[in-house]
């Protein structure tokens, strides 16, 4: 994992230092899971579930993305997705919250930017 990769991630607000400490300083395994991140289907599932007004699927997908992103230090994604998780937590019916779309758009913007960096350094 070269310094430019790390610098670019940090410029987007990724907390590489804390995440690496979580992986006990093992750069290879950290990188392995970073590279897998764009392939994970759960982020797309959030959108699919919101479009389908499926509150349970939205909660589960967002919950999973939040956990993975937080572990990897991808804070711009995890902090926004966490707000989506809280909107859906324990909801008995689909929540009538006008912020859902905007939060998703913000998360998606950060998701795309970060995934682009990861893809660039994946080869």
């Amino acid at each position: 994992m070269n310094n430019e990769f790390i610098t670019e991630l940090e410029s987007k607000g990724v907390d590489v230092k804390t995440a690496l400490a979580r992986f006990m300083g093992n750069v290879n395994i950290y990188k392995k899971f970073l590279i897998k991140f764009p392939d994970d289907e759960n982020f797309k599932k959030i959108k699919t579930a919101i479009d389908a007004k499926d509150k349970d699927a939205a909660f589960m997908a967002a919950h999973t993305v939040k956990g993975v992103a937080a572990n990897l230090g991808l804070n711009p994604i995890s902090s926004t997705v966490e707000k989506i998780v809280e909107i859906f937590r324990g909801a008995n019916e689909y929540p009538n919250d006008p912020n859902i779309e905007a939060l998703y758009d913000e998360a998606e913007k950060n998701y795309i930017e970060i995934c682009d960096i990861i893809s660039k350094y994946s080869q």
Partner: protein
Amino acid sequence: MRNTLLVVDDMEMNRDILELIFSDSYKIIKAEDGLQAIAMLEKYKDEICAVLLDIFMPNMDGFGVLDFMHKNNMDSSIPTVLITGDTSNEVKKKGYSMGVSDVIEKPFDSQIVKTRIDNIVELYLHKNSLEDLVDEQTKKIMLQAEKINQTNRNLWDTLGAIVEFRNHESGMHIYRVREFTRVLLASVAENYPEYGLTDELIDAMAFASVMHDVGKISVSDTILLKPGRLTDEEFEIMKTHTTKGSEIIDAVCDTDEEIYFKYGRQIARSHHERYDGRGYPDGLTGDEIPLCAQIVSIADVYDALVSERVYKPPFTPSEAFRMITNGECGQFNPKLLDCFKIARKQFEELADRLK
């Protein structure tokens, strides 16, 4: 020594991070859902030192695993730590109420997780080893109690034998009386359950029977060893072996805490009493005479009849049976005579075997 950490999480990344943290200190086994976790718990329950458990998983969730551990008594020796991405208090409260040792939220700081888990594992290893130690000590104490019990019995047998050797007999009389006593007690237990004779009581009474003649140690040789019938005056002295016997036992132990002593004292004092009040030393009647003494007295009379004495030849077992049941040797408790009649064959076999 437990040294295996079971990591249960459906996310590969979480399992790998925990493995990175703990692989230096523990052997790591991993499960991807609750069902795999309980299969591993069953297989490695004696090696697992802690379970790191995610909550939301397919097939069976973390609460299902906690439930399984509780039902199988694994939670007392294996600590569980919830590692959850769900930060709601509901999950934490439910986890604690189901006995988890700690709840750690994801994303976590690896150093802190390592320290917390290490502490919990150490605490449980200590607790388990203390419990093992208590079990071991308890076993030792039980063994020692059994040894003391055996020593007591040996001492009593020795005391009984000393008295009998002074009587120039072989020690077989007390042994035979003990076995006749045991046979009669078994018959009473079977036919009159209202006496409440347990195996433990039967054993204690049979062993205490060896003390029945201990008071003879205080009777002078000229009377004790006199060939031929005693004068009335001599017989009065001979009769004191009952009261002397209970005094000797009192001198050794003045409480009834140990049932051997209680029965031994009753037997020594009252084994010459008769049901109609015509026995000695106290002229007790009926059930004033302790049960153990009533039983030993039948066994003692039976053995005296079938044995040779300086003043008489041995009677045959059937003559002895007749003399006891028809009252020639004094009145006995009719219920005990019933039991004696029922056990007649065993008495005769025993008399034949122990001749």
